[in-house]
């Protein structure tokens, strides 16, 4: 259902963009502050900076990147909320910031306090272990977890809830270890500090090399790389870890400004030869553009779903 909704929303958003004649004329009032919710140097940060670089080359807009990290993007959300909504400030978060994290933080804000501009790429979120563990599939892992609790690495509270629900649905116990960022999960799994963990695309090279194995897809659809791996919905968990990188602005960003940003970003990340397109294709399996009203609908949807997930996990 959600998939259809997302697809419909995406189609709606794209059609809205094509009519945005006004968007062509809009130019930013000056240099644009680009807040980035990710640690400097990581894949997400590089993506944001490359998009800014491409926009500077293509349109001559000037960006000043600034790191506003921490609290799963909530620090950025709270900081950008009170910035002017004239297109002089935008930020890059993940949809989870506007969904689960905003719900959990209970900081008195909802997705309506922000303008969703566009997504750039989705995650290939899998449940991954070292292939040297000897597990060829999800069931092998569960069989071992029957004996002793396994260590399950996660990089966000939402994923911790999902790991907990997965254990509950499968009748096993996981020792859930929260770390900061997908790379930390991968390092932990590689070092043997964790038996398995969520990885949002970073596992691609390891899986291809045969060192890591995707035990399951944490998405509402199969993983591109391991389509035979079961999805969470097949494993008794009615939630998923679907998510995207998302550009946001404070609420009240004029529609022509929003659409100008969305069009410009959408164009650079889907154009061959652009640095950001190259990077997104390599690191995140290609761009996914859900823009404008569709993006806003998507985050509202995630925000509502987060409430249900929390309720389920706290039972």
């Amino acid at each position, binding site marked *: 259902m959600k998939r259809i909704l997302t697809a419909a929303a995406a189609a709606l958003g794209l059609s809205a963009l094509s009519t945005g004649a006004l968007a062509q004329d809009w130019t930013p009032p000056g240099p644009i502050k680009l807040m980035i919710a990710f640690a400097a*140097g990581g894949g997400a940060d590089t993506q944001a900076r490359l998009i800014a670089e491409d926009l500077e080359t293509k349109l001559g807009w000037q960006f000043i990147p600034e790191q*506003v990290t921490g609290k799963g993007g909530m620090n950025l959300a709270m900081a950008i909320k009170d910035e002017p909504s004239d297109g002089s400030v935008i930020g890059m978060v993940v949809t989870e910031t506007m969904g689960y994290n905003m719900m959990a933080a209970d900081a008195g804000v909802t997705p309506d306090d922000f303008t969703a501009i566009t997504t750039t790429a989705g995650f290939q979120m899998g449940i991954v272990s070292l292939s040297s563990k000897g597990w060829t599939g999800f069931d092998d892992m569960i069989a071992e977890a029957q004996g002793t609790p396994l*260590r399950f690495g996660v990089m966000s509270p939402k994923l911790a809830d999902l790991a907990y629900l997965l254990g509950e649905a499968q009748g096993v116990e996981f*020792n859930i*270890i929260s770390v900061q960022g997908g790379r930390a999960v991968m390092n932990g799994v590689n070092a043997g500090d964790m038996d398995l963990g969520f990885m949002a695309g970073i596992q691609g090279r390891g899986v291809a090399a045969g060192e890591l194995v995707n035990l399951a897809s944490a998405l509402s659809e199969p993983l591109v790389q391991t389509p035979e791996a079961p999805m969470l919905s097949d494993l008794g968990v009615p939630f998923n870890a679907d998510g995207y990188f998302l550009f946001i602005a404070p609420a009240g960003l004029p529609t022509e400004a929003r659409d100008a940003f969305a069009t410009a970003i959408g164009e650079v990340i889907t154009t061959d030869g652009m640095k950001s397109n190259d990077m997104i294709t390599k690191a995140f399996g290609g761009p996914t553009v859900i823009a404008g009203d569709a993006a806003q609908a998507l985050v509202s949807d995630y925000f509502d779903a987060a409430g249900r997930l929390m309720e389920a996990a706290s039972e």
Partner: protein
Amino acid sequence: MGWLDYVWLGILAVFQGPEMFSLFGIGISVTLVMILMGFLLGIAVGSTPGLAGPMAMAIALPILISIFGFTPDALLPVMGFLLGIMKGATIGGAVPAILFNTPGTPDAYMTTLDGYPMTRRGEAKKALRVAHFSSASGDTFSDIVLILCAPFLAVVVERYLDLPEKAALLILSLAFIAAVISNSVGKGLISLGLGLLAAYVGTGEDFYPRLSLDTQVLAQGFPVAAVVLGVLIVGEVFCRLEDIRRDRRLKSSSGDIVQAKATRLSGAELRGLMPYIGRSAIIGTAIGALPGIGSTLAATLGYASAQRRYRRSGKTPKMGDGAPEGIAATEAANSSVSGANLIPVLSLGIPGNAAAVFLILAAETIGGFNPGPSVFRQMGDAVNPEMVIAFGLFTCMMIANLLNWTIGGVFMRSMGFMSRIPKHVLLPVVLLLTLTSIYVQETRMAAIWFTVAFGILGYAMRRLGISPLPFVIAFILGGNLEQTARQAFAATGCDPLFLVSSAVSILFMALTASIIVLSLKRPKEAPE
């Protein structure tokens, strides 16, 4: 991918990195140029009393990052520059000590004892040659030990230590640093505690911002650069400015002494120095490998050991009256600390001195390289980019050593004039550069206020005799400690006794307790 493949990839990463310009058709990589520039700057900075290597590293870092950006390509040029400063400053420190009897850094104090008498005898050039030769020898020896030890230690840690043991090891390191850096273990612990407190503002796993006093400014925590530069650099500048105000006397200079022309060191002289250099290099390397014990202690021990040996030999002039052996022992000891200091940095992620703090800061800010045991992980057929960077850094250090042996001596001997730069001009420039460079990196005004506030804290700590280094190291390791402890707690199925759950972690915790207890018993007048 074997170890040798990584060594080769590391060397290639330095030489074939982004090209700066090409010379006779051969591309010169930007990393090489940066090492050279850092090295020359380091010598100049080390030769200037009132400046020190870490200061230059601190100011250079944000400026370099704004030039090179946050891409992995930036790691080697930026860190190569910083390593160059570190090495240059190490040999430069002897210049004012020998020529003007003013040690540029505390660890060069022992160099004045024999260096300045030699200058008064007209043998300044020779003294500088001895200092350069011993310093470069000690430094190179230390680097070789680092390159051989760090990967090995990292592999051992990664293979045998689980999360609870890693948490215990971090606690042990912090306790050790607090106990040995300052004279008083109590003051060390205060400094450490304050550092941890600062590290915990605004961080943590909950969505609710911790210790932020309900303000948005504190909710993001303190910017690392603001805290580290504030306490280490701005605090130091505040102290020195006050010293100048209090003490306006001018130091006597020795410009009028006629210096001898023939200054070459003969082969026999060098052979005579070698035992002193060798011993001091071993002492310095051993001390450097332990986090927190600085080059000052290494210099003191190196000098003392040389003194015993020299007395038995019955040579003249006596040590302290201008014996080249004294300079050799001191300079070899304090220089051999710098390489070995990176052993805990690269294998455990634990910085042991201010220079190491800035190298970790560079790695953290740029991203893509996280000093710690995971750096030296073999990943089967895939390339571990962090290990390539690590061996690239080793290559940078060896290039810096090569520069040191070839042009370092000449450049160093020409740096005497740096000592004439008046402090009342120098310090405000340092202050302004620090604040500017922080604004360049953080681009928000709050970062400047934080820097000034932490500068005042650094000033207060120095005036109260509290070493600011445990503060900075605790601040840098605080997040790591909390995460490792939380992860260890979760991984053991929420066992509250996870710190004493295995033989290794019990050993680490017992060592922690005994270090604190033994330091408390240490007599107060023990040498620093």
